[in-house]
């Protein structure tokens, strides 16, 4: 089986979500050709993650319609029967277009490898799984960020120049505003997340959340009331109507754990809940719990992590 993996890059290097897509295809048993668009340093890291070859489109593209045309043309040129992209902000815009262009069945946000014609994904906000079957010969799959990890140990992939017919752009990027602070990992792809809710009593107290997050190299998040009250920006809201995350570690302080919040975080591998109320529903969904005041527990926890060797 041959796979064409769409490999988003940043500053010439493949993104982690893109490398995960490459490694995923390799795990499915495919010979993986990656498609990278825009500036690229050597193979961008694709070879190490499992790609045997990188097709490189030198011209950067902003419109996902054009990216989809490039991916589709590359998949045809390589005779791929599988197209993989990350299920993130880019992949979600590219992959559905590719599926239509190539007349392929598509399975978004998978959590398991392709076995025969069937692949597993989470549904009902993580409260169930579905085994989805695709009958078309060519299949399009997007991989849930942080569900598979990046393999390393492959060799350097050969890089070939590729010049697809991408047509006119119907969308252009006119501005970019970096998230507050650093270039931290976007929430849907974060490996560690520290989140806080109304229990923090006001936006002026967020420094203890940020200190813990910095110490853990984690991304910060918040509950819905906190973003609705304007304490934190909307893009930090995790939960049913905000962002769904799937980190290895999710630490929630001063969040009761309403079902709408849990729907956005219950796919986390390990959940730690910190709440003054021992009856808080979050303790039923958490792996580890501390009944205590976030104002005391968070700084102590930050200290304890700093003391790790």
């Amino acid at each position, binding site marked *: 089986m041959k796979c064409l993996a769409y490999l*988003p890059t940043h500053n010439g290097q493949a*993104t982690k979500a893109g490398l995960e897509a490459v490694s995923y295809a390799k795990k499915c048993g495919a010979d993986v050709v990656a498609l990278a668009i825009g500036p690229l340093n050597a193979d961008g890291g694709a070879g190490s993650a499992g790609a045997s070859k990188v097709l490189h489109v030198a011209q950067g593209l*902003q*419109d*996902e*319609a054009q990216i989809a045309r490039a991916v589709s043309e590359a998949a045809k040129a390589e005779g791929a029967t599988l197209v993989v992209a990350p299920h993130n*902000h880019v992949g*979600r*815009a590219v992959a*559905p*277009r590719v*599926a*239509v*262009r190539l007349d392929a*069945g*598509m399975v*978004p946000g998978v959590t398991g490898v392709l076995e025969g014609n069937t692949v597993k994904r*989470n549904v*009902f*906000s*993580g*409260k*169930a*799984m*579905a*085994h*989805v079957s695709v009958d078309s010969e060519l299949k399009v799959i997007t991989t849930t960020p942080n569900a598979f990890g990046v393999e390393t140990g492959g060799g350097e992939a050969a890089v070939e120049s590729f010049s697809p017919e991408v047509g006119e752009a*119907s*969308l*252009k*990027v*006119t*501005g*970019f505003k970096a*998230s507050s602070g650093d270039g*931290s990992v*976007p929430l849907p792809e974060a490996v560690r997340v520290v989140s806080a809710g109304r229990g923090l009593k006001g936006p002026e107290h967020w420094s203890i959340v940020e200190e813990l997050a910095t110490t853990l190299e984690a991304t910060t998040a918040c509950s819905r009331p906190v973003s609705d009250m304007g304490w934190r920006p*909307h*893009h930090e809201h995790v939960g*049913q*109507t*905000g*962002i*769904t995350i799937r980190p290895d*570690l999710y630490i929630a302080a001063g969040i009761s754990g309403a079902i709408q919040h849990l729907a956005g975080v219950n796919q986390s591998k*390990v959940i730690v809940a910190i709440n003054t109320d021992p009856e808080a529903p979050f303790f039923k*969904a*958490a*792996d*580890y719990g*501390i*009944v205590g*005041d976030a104002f*005391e*527990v968070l700084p*102590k926890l930050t200290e*304890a*992590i700093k*003391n*790790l060797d």
Partner: protein
Amino acid sequence: MKILVCISKAPDTTSRIAFTEGDTQFDSNGVQFIVNPYDEWYALVRALELKEAQGGSVTTITVGEADCDPVIRKSLAIGADDAVRIDANPTDALQVASLIANHASTGGYDLVLCGKETIDHNGSVVGGMLAELMNASFVSLATSLEVQAGVVKATREAAGGMESVEASLPAVVSAAKGMAEQRIPNMRGIMAARSKPLNVVPAEGALHGAAVAKFELPPAKGDCKMISADQPEELVRLLREEAKVL
């Protein structure tokens, strides 16, 4: 401006999730269905705001059977002018997108809005497929939306921050948190919704891509391990040695 808003029904967040017929069908017994929150809170409300500011019309479109009518009526109560229901059981994103695209192709819509995903299948696929099928531009996961002089201006999530983008009409936009605030229908809206047109049309020209073979419930979760508030080192030790996440 003619705006089409894709509306899907979804089980209420608090629903018990269970399956029937050999785990191949969702068990809707006793389940309360709602308008998919991303469709309702963000896509529909923003469409109404654009219409209120610039004139035009807001039509909703749903692929579903008669059991969708209550959520369609709610969309009309919130303020949509009329509704279309394509009479088919939705089983696959490509089927839904192709049915909507076939219908929309004759409607002359400038803008098609949908929620970023449904809260049951969480696919996030229909919008992109629709854009490709309609040969329209597509802004995914938009957190704000303006249309000025025939140009879509939106912000959306990007790696490490937010992007501003411009796209040409016709456009499909998928709506994420931030685009609008939830509206609660008032009594006048609810009364008016009863007499607004809900046109049921036959399903024609559906494509098919994928199908759910079987559902599965996740294994039961273990108990939460409680740690004393004055022993954060113990939590750190467990996270490192037991959970292996540090």
